[in-house]
């Protein structure tokens, strides 16, 4: 870095001399303006130089500029040539701030602004530059993050300053990562000694560097790299197995969530609820609506969506129950017909009232990224949360069905309606509550799914078939069955997928269900007793 610094400083001197005339007050601004002017060029190489210059300038606002540049928010007013930082860039009119004076300038039309564009190469360079700046912050986590970002990104010129940094670094992890980052660069230069520092690491950049080295012409280097790789591969295989299991459980948890509400409305009440998917959709849209109400606080909005999604879907469920299903008592197949109609109406309602387009649901910070178990195995956080959420919902439902008065009454009514009524249970009320419960749980599923997939009018249709499969496979009327069925189908699917491909895996799972039902015509956990016989 010193080399770059001296070079840049030389350049800077020249520039500064050229602009020496202006008044002292404007001096700081002029320096900044000069730095920024250099960015306004069509050549990405020249922009790269300009970025380095800014980073080295020590200008108090340099970091802001680089971040704005990284976000595409550093722009220039067309007519005045003034550099501005855009604060929000949606719509046609954007609030902006002067890049130099930090003064709020109100709104400007998108037409009047020219963006200082970057491409991926420059973005990488910017990120590195920022990472280097971060390596000096006192925050250990930020330093580790920065060091990890540097893996595979170290250029020959950076080796020296980084080595200096390693010596001064207090944190072992940062030191290890930096050493590896440097070693990758040394490996690329053909340094056999670097292999040792890298062996055992599961990081993708490390592996990538070793694979490249294994192909090198230098026999000794290639040999060493291959050995190190073999060790890594072995570790990876174990990780791969765990990863597949996690993928399977994660997919399974989605299936369980989607199906568990149906396990109540269909399994317990016998309503073939084709609008179940649309209830899920309502939950997802609630999340979207909540985020619209609380802009800038996606996490809070998501948390609030859990009760809200439940309520919205439950209310919709009550309307469906009162409006349609109560007239179809004892005619389960006709509930299929009517609820299919309801599902069409709900879908089109969303299309007309909100939009036929998908809606953006933002993932809160704490749900993005992954939980790193080790360098080779990291569990994606959003799916981890969904998995946990699915289990919580399941546990909650079990509690309701097993431990509450409502659960008891539901079980009584489903087993013998007339008898339950004669014992003073208000069967109609139980119906409403059960249906509301099942619908509400579908809403919860929607809240969770909004974190994984599209929020749009078609959301429900994508899950309705799978949901019925899961409930039936598990055994109608059995919540445990739904849980086991969902998780096991998920795992089977993910185990088959690498081997058979996504489509074939799904087909095989369906064939498996068909054959399984031949073996056990009433699912995994059949309802017992003579009452169940036809």
């Amino acid at each position, binding site marked *: 870095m010193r080399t770059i610094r001296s070079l840049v400083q030389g350049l800077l001197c020249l520039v500064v001399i050229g602009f020496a005339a202006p008044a002292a007050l404007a001096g700081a601004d002029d320096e900044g303006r000069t730095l920024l002017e250099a960015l306004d060029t069509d050549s990405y190489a020249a922009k790269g130089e300009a970025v380095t210059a800014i980073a080295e300038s020590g200008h108090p606002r340099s970091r802001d500029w680089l971040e704005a540049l990284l976000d595409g928010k550093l722009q220039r007013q067309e007519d005045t040539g003034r550099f501005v930082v855009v604060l929000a860039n949606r719509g046609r009119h954007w609030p902006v701030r002067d890049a130099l004076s930090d003064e709020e300038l109100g709104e400007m039309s998108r037409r009047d602004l020219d963006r200082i564009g970057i491409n991926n190469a420059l973005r990488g360079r910017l990120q590195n530059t920022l990472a280097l700046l971060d390596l000096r912050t006192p925050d250990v986590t930020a330093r580790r993050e920065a060091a990890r970002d540097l893996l595979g990104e170290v250029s020959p010129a950076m080796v020296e300053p980084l080595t200096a940094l390693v010596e001064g670094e207090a944190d072992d992890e940062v030191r290890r990562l930096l050493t590896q980052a440097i070693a990758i660069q040394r490996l690329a230069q053909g340094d056999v000694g670097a292999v040792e520092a890298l062996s055992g690491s599961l990081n993708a950049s490390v592996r990538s560097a070793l694979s490249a080295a294994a192909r090198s012409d230098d026999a000794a280097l290639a040999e060493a790299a291959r050995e190190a790789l073999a060790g890594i591969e072995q570790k990876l295989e174990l990780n791969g197995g765990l990863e597949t299991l996690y993928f399977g459980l994660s997919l399974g948890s989605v299936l369980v969530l989607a199906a568990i509400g149906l396990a109540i409305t269909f399994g317990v009440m016998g309503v073939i609820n084709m609008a179940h998917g649309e209830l899920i959709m309502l939950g997802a849209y609630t999340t979207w609506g909540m985020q619209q109400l609380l802009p800038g606080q996606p996490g809070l909005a998501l948390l609030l969506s859990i009760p809200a999604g439940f309520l919205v879907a439950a209310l919709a469920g009550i309307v469906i129950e009162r409006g*349609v299903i109560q007239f179809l008592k004892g005619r389960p197949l006709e509930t299929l017909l009517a609820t299919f109609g309801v599902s069409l109406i709900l879908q089109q309602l969303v299309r*007309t009232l909100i939009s036929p387009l998908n809606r953006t649901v933002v993932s809160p910070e704490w749900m993005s990224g992954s939980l790193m178990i080790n360098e080779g195995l990291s569990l994606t956080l959003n799916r981890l949360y969904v998995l946990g959420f699915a289990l919580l919902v399941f546990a909650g439902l079990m509690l309701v069905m097993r431990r509450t008065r409502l659960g008891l009454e539901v079980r009584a009514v489903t087993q013998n309606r007339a008898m339950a009524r004669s014992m003073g249970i208000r069967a109609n009320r139980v119906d409403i509550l059960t249906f509301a419960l099942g619908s509400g749980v579908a809403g919860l599923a929607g809240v969770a799914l909004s974190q994984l997939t599209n929020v749009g009018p078609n959301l429900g249709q994508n899950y309705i078939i799978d949901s019925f499969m899961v409930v039936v496979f598990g055994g109608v009327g059995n919540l445990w069955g739904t849980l086991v069925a969902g998780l096991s189908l998920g795992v089977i699917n993910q185990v088959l997928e690498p081997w058979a491909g996504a489509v074939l895996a799904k087909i095989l799972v369906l064939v498996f269900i068909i054959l399984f039902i031949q073996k056990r015509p009433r699912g995994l956990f059949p309802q017992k007793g003579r009452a169940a016989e036809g």
Partner: protein
Amino acid sequence: MLASRSWLSRPFRERSTQIFLGVLLAALAVVTLLNLVVPAGHPLHVSTYTVTLLGKYLSFALLAVALDLVWGYLGILSLGHGAFFALGGYAMGMYLMRQIGDRGVYGDPVLPDFMVFLDWDRLPWYWHGFDMAWFAFLMVLLAPGILALVFGFLAFRSRVTGVYLSIITQALTFALMLAFFRNEMGFGGNNGLTDFKELLGFDLRGDATRLGLFLASGVALALGYVLCRAIVASKLGRVSVACRDAEARTRFLGYRVERVQLFVFVVSAMLAGVAGALYVPQVGIINPGEFSPIFSIEVVLWVALGGRGTLYGAVIGALVVNYAKTVFTGVMPEAWLFALGGLFVVVTVLLPKGVAGLLETLRRRRDGEATETSAQGANS
């Protein structure tokens, strides 16, 4: 035994069948006349567009009749009848593809365009024979028939019933849909089979061919209806109703319930296949969309709306829903789903026995009959 006394001729002696056939054949004749004789500008003229549309409805009606046979009289709610329909359609489509010959865009004499497009150098084995009409038409029956036989054999032998059976039929059609979407399967993937030229030497674009297809659909519907009526009115028909209502009892009377189920299921699947084969040349395309579970559910809705367990109700349901769909998608493109969805809800809640049930009630009210015999229909 006298021919007139055979089980097949029994329906012709039933009044309801006579009325049905009379109305159907009269309608065919009227449409043909209005299409051929009345000049194009005249308000009474039925355009070829309408004729083709009606032909499509009739093939759907045949599918609905096939479904009503298993659902209404055997109590098997198949949510996968679209699969049999589509298989029949694909068999027909494969024949039509082979008929294109070297008139495809690439001019390959044997390979259909999509295979040239995907670099296939030879015809997959299962495409052989489809250049011969008799073979293709046989496959229209056999492909769905064999699938129904194998699937039914497994399911009925294991006594899979009720909603479990419904869901695995759904799984069946879903799996087939995914399979046919795969381009490796050699059925044209998502695009399916299209750009047909001619059928049995007749140009598919010709008005006469379209009218002919319409009439063929009408006749097929009539024959299918008579066949179903014949089965329903036979002792076997009563046995299947017995299976529907009290399966165990029927077994204890000494009937092989699973064989009855299998027989009726296979017949129904073949009828669905015929419907598909008639549908394809009229709409000009067959693709995996027909396998979609939603389509099969829609077919169930036609039957339910028309009135389950009456056969003619299925025909009414198919015609009404599809006509409504045609009208609504044109007249109120933004809101037709509300209308269709609303129709399903209203009919289910207000007309539990469908349109046929309503007709029956009206008829009885008019006749002032007090006999309860026909009042008790199938209870689900």
